[in-house]
């Protein structure tokens, strides 16, 4: 069972970024002049800089392992997947693997809008490395999985986006390589269908001993699907081992997030030109003091500031809470403020929410922040792992623990009312 499927040794990847010295052109004329100047003195004006997307990555993966690759934006996850999929070559290092590799960095690679669903199944399947015979054999299954039977002979550009994604997934889900490399593709599509795909992948790996490499932002998903994990930070491998341990490292150190975070416009993870931009999220106590740790018997406040860039938007803000295992503890959105129903003016807004004392269990809690228009389900922003904080029980006897000090499982820790009488 401990046969090696992939061995990666000392892999690095360098990109050369060239940027203009002065890229703030105030007018079109200046931009144009800069362009012309650049044309004649390209060497002088351009600053070339080496950028190491990956540095000295070394690991070995056994056959049948399901590896979750996690890390912040720009940590090198996608670069690693691209190198493993042989789309780009490493600058140094060597990788060996045993068996057929299929990579799924995008759903529907090569789909052509003018071709019908049936034609696209064959085209996409063959792009992903299936032979005609394999596609023929799987064809009915793919069609059934995608739930688009009636539109099989319609050009896919006429499909709704949901149908398009389902068809693309269906093809991908029926790949049968020995090694499957999957990027964040599962982030799209409706959640029921996502579950179906994840289930299919789980099956493939557990029943047939397939090796899977999986990048995701959702700790919940990687924890469910993967047995081992790789944590990347700024192109270096920060942790490698059992998935739950790697996830813990990710969530608890600075690699993950802390209880206070601000977003700059230049932050690559920040969605530009959105109608609503997140400014900051802070977890704090009753006295508005930012803390990393909270007493389980005290209320916890979470304050978000965001800027509304367009007039007349209607939305409310919401939080979701996940525990260390990636389980969604609960979600909440503002159901009281008048702003949730009326068109807003441009400007900066601040929203504070209080978590009742004696609600959360001990441990690390991750907070996701979103702005959503309830009526249409339109998301203005959604930071899945915006901040995190730790809940502690200081064992003073006033919590749900009472005098009990040992392991105390459970997703929430409410202080329940007890009444005992002798009958």
């Amino acid at each position, binding site marked *: 069972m401990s046969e090696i499927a992939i061995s990666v040794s000392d892999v690095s990847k360098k*990109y050369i970024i060239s940027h203009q010295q002065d890229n703030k052109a105030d007018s079109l004329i200046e931009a144009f002049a800069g362009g012309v100047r650049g044309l004649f003195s390209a060497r002088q004006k351009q600053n070339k800089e080496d950028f190491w997307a990956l540095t000295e990555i070394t690991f070995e993966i056994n056959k049948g392992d399901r590896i979750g690759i996690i890390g912040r934006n720009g940590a090198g996850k996608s670069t690693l997947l*691209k*190198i*493993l*999929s*042989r*789309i*780009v*070559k*490493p*600058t*140094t*290092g*060597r*990788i*060996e*693997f*045993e*068996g*057929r*590799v299929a*990579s799924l*960095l*995008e759903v529907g*690679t*090569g789909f*052509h809008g*003018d*071709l019908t669903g049936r*034609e696209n199944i*064959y*085209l996409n399947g*063959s*792009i*992903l*490395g*299936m*032979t*005609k015979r394999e*596609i023929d054999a799987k064809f009915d299954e793919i069609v059934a999985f995608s739930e688009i039977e009636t539109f099989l002979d319609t050009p896919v550009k006429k499909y709704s986006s949901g149908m398009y994604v389902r068809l693309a997934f269906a093809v991908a889900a029926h790949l049968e390589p020995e090694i499957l490399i999957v990027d964040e593709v599962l982030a799209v599509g409706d959640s029921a269908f996502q579950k179906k795909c994840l289930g299919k992948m789980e099956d493939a790996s557990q029943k047939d001993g397939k090796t899977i490499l999986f990048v995701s932002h959702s700790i919940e998903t990687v924890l469910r699907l993967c047995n081992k994990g790789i944590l990347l930070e700024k192109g270096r491998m920060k942790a490698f081992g059992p998935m739950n341990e790697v996830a813990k490292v990710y969530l608890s150190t600075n690699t993950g997030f802390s209880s206070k975070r601000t977003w700059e416009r230049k932050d690559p993870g920040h969605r530009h030109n959105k109608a609503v931009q997140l400014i900051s999220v802070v977890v704090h106590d009753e006295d508005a003091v930012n803390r990393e740790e909270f007493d389980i018997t005290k209320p916890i406040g979470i304050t978000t500031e965001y800027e509304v860039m367009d007039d007349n938007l209607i939305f409310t803000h919401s939080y979701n809470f996940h525990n260390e295992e990636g389980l969604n503890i609960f979600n909440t959105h503002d159901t009281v403020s008048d702003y949730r129903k009326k068109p807003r003016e441009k400007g900066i807004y601040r929203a504070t929410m209080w978590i009742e004392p004696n609600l959360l269990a001990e441990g690390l809690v991750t907070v996701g922040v979103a702005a959503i228009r309830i009526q249409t389900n339109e998301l203005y922003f959604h930071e899945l792992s915006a901040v995190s904080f730790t809940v502690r029980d200081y064992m003073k006897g006033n919590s749900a623990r009472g005098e009990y000090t040992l392991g105390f499982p459970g997703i929430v820790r409410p202080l329940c009312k007890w009444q005992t009488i002798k009958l």
Partner: protein
Amino acid sequence: MKTVITSEDRSFIDIRELKRYLGLFKYLSLRDVFVRYKQTWLGFGWSIIRPLINIVIFGLLSYLVDKSQNFQDRFVIVSGGVVFWQLLSTAILDVSNSLTSNSNILTKVYFPKLLLPASSILVCLIDFLIAFVIFLILYFVFKGLPTLHILLLPLVLVYGLIFSFAIGLVFATASVKFRDIKFILPFLIQILFYASPVFLSSEFVLKQNLPQFLKVIYQLNPFVFILNAFKFSLFGTFENFDPFYACSSVLITVLALVFSVKYFLNFEKSFADYI
């Protein structure tokens, strides 16, 4: 099956791998065919109208320029050349665009990249076959049945396509880094059109009062031999046949093919970084 990834630039043609990807070659080729005239009112009618218009324009024009033959003969010969040239020039263009126009696939999945330029040939061939039928009708009306020389035709087609493919492949590779190619290529093809015996016969060109070195360069152009061979297979006479230039044309074609494939393979692994 064991695969090794290194930082090595060079890649090789792996026959076993190409075999495995035969299906992809087929579907990429078919995609181009299906998609070419999608959402046009005339559809494949364009495969008839485009060559027809070219035949009429260049057939007439060429008679105005070169009156050494009677009109009918000249017209049929030029229309053959026009039809064949359309195959060669669209092959150069389509092959050279094949990488940049498929950048979405190139950056998302691994496969032998040589399939992209190779698979863009089929659609050119199908267009050619349709145009060639029109030409054959014209031929039949003006000249009757073709001679046995026509058996050489497939060979000439393959030969011409190889040279076009080689040129296209060099430009395809270069265009990954330099989009300038997109602007240069149409001019180059236009120049080649006049520098090859499509519209002006090589006899006519060589009779002109031109400096000797220009005539040598003209004859070194492999397309001169290719188009004259094409005409030979149809009309049975070989204009300005010269064994030296016949050999040089074959040699240049072979060298071009070797060079273009090598150039392509040298950069194949970096395509996704630059495109």
